[in-house]
């Protein structure tokens, strides 16, 4: 058509003639193949002419587009594609400018067919790996236009789908083309990412709207596909393969979708593209890629049903390079912080997503973010408690603020705790104990240095915070496997934990017991002790028992007294319910299984017998139920320990008592107490001795088998420490008086006064004679001292005093000690004091007067 004038044709440059020749007379005929071969050959042999060929071709194409001669447009594009494919990488660069211009021209068109044609060419070009840098290329328009195509709202559904798919493919092309070339426009810049990512997500999310429930099965299959770890990406994915795989998951072919390849829907394509994009993201780019995802989810309020949000983040976590996954977690965390005043449902959504993502991330490295993550979560937990208590987001009740629904906050709190648990369960042991310590340090404790907030809300807040944190702690500790108890329960942690164990609040106490149980249980035995019973043969429990390791023995040496004391005191709590007794039983049993050596066994038996005393003596005025429960607890535990020690005589004694209880007092056995409707007896004071476990009997039988019978004979008395003073339960005064009582009982003075009272005439007489002799001696010494000071030269006296200075000091200390606590004075002087009451001071004091006189 353009070469009509023959003479002009001959004058035209050769490349123009070659280009003209590939166009047929009738556009229906398609590309003239032989002439195209000629053009290709020419282009290959004279690559320097490529730019001119390209320029001329694009000029023709632009003209044809303007004249609506679409047949020729297609031919020109086909020719360009072929040239592009045929040429060597190095020479392509000359050609690309005109090529991109043509694609842009096609994309500017309103005709869907031309847009798609342009996109397809672009995708082909994108798959060519270039090795020469291209400094001046800009893909701005392409990104903008392809993103726009992703949002196509064409009336015709089929065309709309096609345009959207083209858009996604185009974006994929841009990404492939630019991602590895640092000299080109940085595709990771926010200006591009903010277009690309939302466009992909928009298509990804659309599948759910379009095929919602009816495609539940195929969604399930898709969900399965998400769980596959990301396959290392090749630069060019062969189209066919993936289409086949995804095609089988896609929706059933509608009659509209004729060709096989078109079966893939935009959502699947978008997902693939997103995966590819994320897979290529380097450390510095992750942030820019994730930010638009978060914003998109915010804008489209997709946190609330959260299915899509979770899906997105699963795609993200499985696609990005594992070493970057902690960055995603970090971003989610900061997003959570940014949203701390959003509705609880939104926060709950984010947290849920976080939990899913964290589990995936933990398999990679999350190193530095671990504590940060827990810190944020715990902070959010506290904020939520505040919101729920105050009813508003800013602490002051003001009009116009959003109403906070308490049950939504509760849901959010549960979600946070669940997240804490699921995240912790993926951590290695050493990190877990770090997390546990960290969490514990956040639990508000009443202490002397930090007085607790006063007032109702303050108390309430503290209590809720304690419960929530302990719940989190319980989540973290469940399934915690640590070979070394010392490292699992370091003393600063144990101290804090146990000090909460004596709280007034029954719920908190139960949490502490459960946390202890989950720490101590390392062989999965805990559920075997969930019900308290007196089995006649414990082999049915199939307990897994390991020998107590050396470290564990050291641990018990260090902390056992503390543990016993808390168990003992916990038993005495009046507010205990069945759950508490079950937990106590579990704790006792697990200590005996996990941490027991002979000494521990002896102590535990003493402890349980002391608990029995509590029930029997009933100083605390416990209700009948609690007393029966303590009896039953003792029976169950002694039954267990007797069979664990396998001392036949011991077993027999225990069995005897249990049998007689069965006959006469079933209300003292767990089978009757720990049931829905406990059968109790009102008359449990004055229990017959046959119904009790007797210390003397037990120490006798165990002493025979090599246990420390002397120790067994001593009744258990809990040690009191500072902690008790800190616990809210007891007033300080009470504790101190208790301590004094204990002290005075232990001090030797009391014991020694008893014999001193049996004074006979003989002893009195002897005392008087002795004391007279002592008096005379004293007088003699005094005289000597005075003489010495009168006669001796000053130097001598000074030297003498110097030598005695240190002696004086120690004596003074001794005096102070004595004045505070009555000294264990020698019995001789005591008798002397009794012999001559008030007439003479104790010689020990008198001896010191000269020293004091020196100064």
């Amino acid at each position: 058509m353009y070469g009509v004038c023959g003479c002009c044709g001959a004058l035209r440059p050769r490349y123009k003639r070659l280009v003209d020749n590939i166009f047929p007379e009738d556009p229906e005929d398609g590309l003239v193949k032989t002439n195209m071969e000629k053009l290709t050959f020419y282009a290959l042999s004279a690559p320097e002419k490529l730019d001119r060929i390209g320029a001329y071709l694009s000029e023709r194409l632009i003209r044809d587009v303007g004249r609506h001669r679409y047949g020729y447009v297609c031919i020109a594009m086909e020719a360009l594609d072929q040239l592009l494919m045929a040429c060597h990488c190095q020479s392509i660069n000359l050609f690309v400018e005109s090529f991109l211009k043509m694609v842009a021209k096609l994309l500017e068109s309103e005709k869907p067919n031309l847009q798609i044609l342009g996109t397809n060419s672009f995708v082909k070009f994108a798959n060519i790996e270039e090795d020469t840098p291209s400094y001046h290329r800009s893909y701005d328009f392409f990104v903008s236009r392809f993103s726009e195509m992703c949002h196509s709202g064409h009336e015709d559904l089929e065309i709309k789908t096609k345009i959207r798919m083209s858009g996604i493919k185009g974006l994929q092309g841009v990404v492939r083309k630019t991602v590895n070339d640092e000299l080109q426009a940085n595709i990771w810049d926010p200006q591009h990412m903010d277009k690309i990512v939302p466009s992909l997500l928009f298509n990804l999310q659309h599948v759910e709207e379009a095929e919602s429930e009816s495609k539940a099965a195929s969604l399930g299959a898709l969900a399965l596909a998400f769980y596959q770890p990301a396959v290392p990406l090749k630069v060019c994915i062969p189209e066919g393969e993936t289409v086949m795989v995804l095609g089988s998951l896609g929706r059933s072919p509608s009659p509209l979708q004729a060709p096989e390849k078109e079966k893939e829907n935009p959502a699947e394509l978008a997902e693939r593209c997103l995966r590819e994009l994320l897979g290529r993201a380097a450390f510095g780019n992750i942030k820019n890629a994730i930010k638009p995802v978060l914003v998109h989810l915010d804008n489209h309020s997709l946190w609330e049903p959260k299915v899509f949000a979770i899906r997105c983040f699963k795609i993200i976590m499985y696609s990005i390079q594992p070493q970057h996954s902690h960055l995603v977690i970090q971003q989610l965390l900061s997003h959570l912080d940014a949203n701390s005043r959003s509705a609880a449902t939104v926060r709950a959504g984010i947290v849920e997503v976080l939990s899913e993502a964290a589990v995936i991330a933990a398999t990679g490295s999350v190193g530095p973010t671990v504590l940060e993550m827990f810190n944020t979560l715990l902070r959010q937990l506290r904020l939520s408690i505040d919101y729920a208590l105050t009813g508003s987001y800013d602490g002051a009740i003001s009009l116009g603020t959003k109403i906070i629904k308490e049950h939504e906050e509760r849901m959010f709190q549960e979600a946070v705790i669940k997240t804490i648990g699921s995240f912790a369960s993926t951590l290695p042991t050493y990190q877990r104990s770090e997390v546990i310590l960290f969490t514990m340090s956040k639990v508000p404790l009443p202490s002397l240095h930090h007085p607790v907030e006063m007032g109702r809300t303050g108390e309430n807040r503290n209590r809720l915070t304690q419960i929530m944190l302990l719940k989190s702690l319980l989540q973290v500790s469940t399934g915690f496997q640590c070979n070394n108890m010392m490292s699992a329960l370091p003393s600063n942690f144990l101290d804090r934990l146990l000090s909460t164990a004596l709280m007034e609040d029954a719920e908190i106490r139960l949490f502490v017991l459960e946390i202890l149980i989950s720490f101590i249980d390392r062989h999965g035995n805990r559920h075997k002790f969930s019900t308290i019973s007196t089995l006649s043969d414990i082999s049915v429990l199939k307990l897994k028992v390991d020998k107590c390791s050396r470290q564990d023995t050291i641990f018990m040496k260090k902390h056992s007294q503390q543990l016993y004391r808390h168990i003992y005191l916990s038993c005495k709590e009046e507010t205990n319910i069945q759950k508490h007794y079950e937990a106590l039983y579990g704790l006792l049993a697990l200590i005996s299984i996990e941490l027991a050596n002979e000494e521990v066994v002896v102590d535990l038996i003493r402890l349980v017998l002391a608990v029995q005393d509590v029930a029997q003596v009933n100083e605390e005025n416990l209700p009948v139920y609690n007393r029966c429960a303590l009896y039953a607890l003792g029976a169950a535990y002694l039954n267990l320990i007797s069979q664990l020690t396998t001392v036949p005589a011991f077993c027999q004694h225990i069995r005897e008592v249990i049998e007689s209880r069965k006959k006469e007092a079933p209300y003292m056995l767990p089978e009757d107490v720990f049931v829905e409707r406990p059968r109790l007896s009102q008359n449990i004071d004055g229990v017959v001795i046959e119904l009790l476990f007797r210390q003397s009997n037990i120490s006798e039988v165990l002493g025979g088998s090599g246990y420390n019978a002397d120790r067994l004979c001593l009744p258990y008395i809990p040690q009191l420490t500072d902690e008790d003073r800190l616990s809210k339960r007891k007033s300080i005064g009470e504790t101190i008086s208790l301590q004094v009582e204990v002290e005075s009982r232990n001090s030797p003075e009391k014991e020694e006064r008893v014999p001193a009272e049996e004074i006979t005439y003989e002893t009195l007489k002897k005392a008087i004679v002795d004391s007279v002799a002592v008096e005379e001696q004293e007088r003699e010494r005094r005289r000597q001292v005075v003489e010495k000071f009168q006669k001796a030269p000053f130097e001598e006296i000074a030297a003498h005093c110097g030598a005695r200075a240190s002696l004086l000091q120690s004596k003074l200390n001794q005096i102070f000690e004595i004045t505070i606590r009555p000294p264990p004075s020698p019995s001789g002087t005591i008798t002397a004091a009794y012999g001559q009451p008030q007439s003479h001071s104790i010689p020990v004091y008198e001896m010191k007067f000269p020293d004091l006189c020196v100064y």
Partner: protein
Amino acid sequence: MSMEDYDFLFKIVLIGNAGVGKTCLVRRFTQGLFPPGQGATIGVDFMIKTVEINGEKVKLQIWDTAGQERFRSITQSYYRSANALILTYDITCEESFRCLPEWLREIEQYASNKVITVLVGNKIDLAERREVSQQRAEEFSEAQDMYYLETSAKESDNVEKLFLDLACRLISEARQNTLVNNVSSPLPGEGKSISYLTCCNFN
């Protein structure tokens, strides 16, 4: 013979509340239609129109954004490279006028500082339901240093004028910049960067 089919290329982005008639304005200008019952725009829409002003071909790339809140993030990403913004409101809807300061904040935040902003009050064909007086709008636009125009996409009132005036202003702006910077094309347009092709065209 130039390879380019235009002398200037400008990117114009339409913004404003949902339902004020942005898409209709663009349609009226580019296709000469007024589609009744136009649905809400999804994300972004793209149209192109080449006009001739004083013998120069000016290509206008028009990005028509969705007014809906949920697409805000993607639409914002289009402001950045815009040469001009058409901020649209509906004269029969007080609410759409009251949102203007918010839109101006968005522009401040996301658009380039050289951007030209035009305030457009659309739907003057519904004069009997007018809620925002012309005077009020004019005062507002003056205070914000914006060019103001009232249009009707339905009656095609002032639509051509809007885009052509804008094109003129963009050209003069571009010329000024060329003088100041002594650069052939300071505007971000993909066409001008490959000038070496055009100069070698004759051999």
